[in-house]
């Protein structure tokens, strides 16, 4: 199950690496147990199997070195590098003219990033873990946003950077594409899993918000108002699923389920605020300025 998700994500990554570096003639990822996780379209499986076998033979004799981290074979016309990355091994075959530093920087940043993203985006499917904690879910949100925001900064700096820094820009562009494709792949894999195995939707993200009063004259006393950006995130996560209610958790352990609507007052937009009617505040034993956790009720 986990390999399927990794394979989808890493296949796209390898494709992008080959697009950026045409001098990379062959690239593939395999596991400790020799199983191929992802590969480019041009490398035959038989070649990969033989390479892995040859590599494992070296590895079995490398206990003296304190375990094997990487092997680089240099020929007159090309180079093969097999390096340990996270729990995988990445094999890269390049021509002699290839900028080794560029390829190494690209692969040693991208592959771990993608693996980390997969680990964080799909904890439920990959590890069958218990429901994740709020902090971990916040990390997921950050990790989805980070790679997509960084290239914007680089694009802004593009005019000022010198030619020698072009590989870094290219690398950022690849990261952006890979991150987008990764998210798509993971969503696809997730949809397939739901269809095939009837698995549950992603764990509802828990967001920490600050309580603001909605006033005693509020017409709907059972409805809270939530920052629109939080609602948008839920829509992105659950697509067409209709979310009608939220669950509020106060730090004292009081939990309440109620309806919600977007914050209307522009001064509260994007501030991580929840407007709660006094009646609900009393029931939760919370008040203005205190923190509560909010998560969508997805059924």
């Amino acid at each position, binding site marked *: 199950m986990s390999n399927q998700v990794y394979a989808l994500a890493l296949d796209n990554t390898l494709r992008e690496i080959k697009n950026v570096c045409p001098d990379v*003639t062959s690239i593939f990822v395999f596991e400790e147990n020799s199983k191929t996780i992802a590969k480019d379209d041009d490398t035959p499986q038989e070649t990969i199997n033989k390479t892995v076998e*040859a590599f494992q033979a070296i590895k079995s004799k*490398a206990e003296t*070195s*304190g375990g094997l981290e990487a*092997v680089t074979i240099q020929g007159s016309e090309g180079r093969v590098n097999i390096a340990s990355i996270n729990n995988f091994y990445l094999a890269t075959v390049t021509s002699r003219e290839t900028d080794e530093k560029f390829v190494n920087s690209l692969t040693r940043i991208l592959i771990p990033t993608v693996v980390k993203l997969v680990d964080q985006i799909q904890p439920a499917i990959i590890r069958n873990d218990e429901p994740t904690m709020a902090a971990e879910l916040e990390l997921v949100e950050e990790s989805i946003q980070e790679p997509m925001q960084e290239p914007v900064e680089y694009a802004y700096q593009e005019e000022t950077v010198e030619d020698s820094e072009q590989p870094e820009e290219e690398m950022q562009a690849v990261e952006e594409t890979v991150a987008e494709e990764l998210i798509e792949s993971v969503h696809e894999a997730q949809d397939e899993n739901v269809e095939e195995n009837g698995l549950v939707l992603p764990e509802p993200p828990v967001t920490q918000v600050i309580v603001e009063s909605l006033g005693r004259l509020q017409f709907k006393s059972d409805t809270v108002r939530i920052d629109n950006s939080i609602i948008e995130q839920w829509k992105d996560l659950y697509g067409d699923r209709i979310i009608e209610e939220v669950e509020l958790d106060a730090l004292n352990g009081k939990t309440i389920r109620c309806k919600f609507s977007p914050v209307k007052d522009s001064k509260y937009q994007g501030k991580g605020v929840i407007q709660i009617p006094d009646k609900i505040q009393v029931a939760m034993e919370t008040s203005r300025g205190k923190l509560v956790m909010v998560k969508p009720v997805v059924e």
Partner: protein
Amino acid sequence: MAKKKKSMSETVDTVFAEESAPIVEALEEKQVSQDLATCLSKMCERPEVLGFILRDATTATINLKEPEKIVDYALLTSQAMESSQEISQMFNLGDFESTLIEGKNMKTLCFVLDENRVNIFMEKDVDHADILNSVRQ
């Protein structure tokens, strides 16, 4: 006529050279191996270089700071050369030049120089390219 004489002389020379070639080559090889061994021994004086194994067609010269690891090192380098040549052929890398094996604590550089198999063991942070260049010079 003069041409013919020259031709004969050349032929005679060539035959002579062919007969003596193996002896000359063997002597040259031995000299190269000795020079290489001397060069590698000097390199071993550097604290970050852990030792070397130099193999030619008939003999092996070994200089290790941890002699108890000789079997492990010999097996590793032998396997590395074999696997590297196999991988080189599979991916059409051309003539084999070198293999670098990076472990958690150390790295090993294997290459062929004038039919001598050279294996140098060093600490992980050593610039192996620098070592390779200095040996090849």
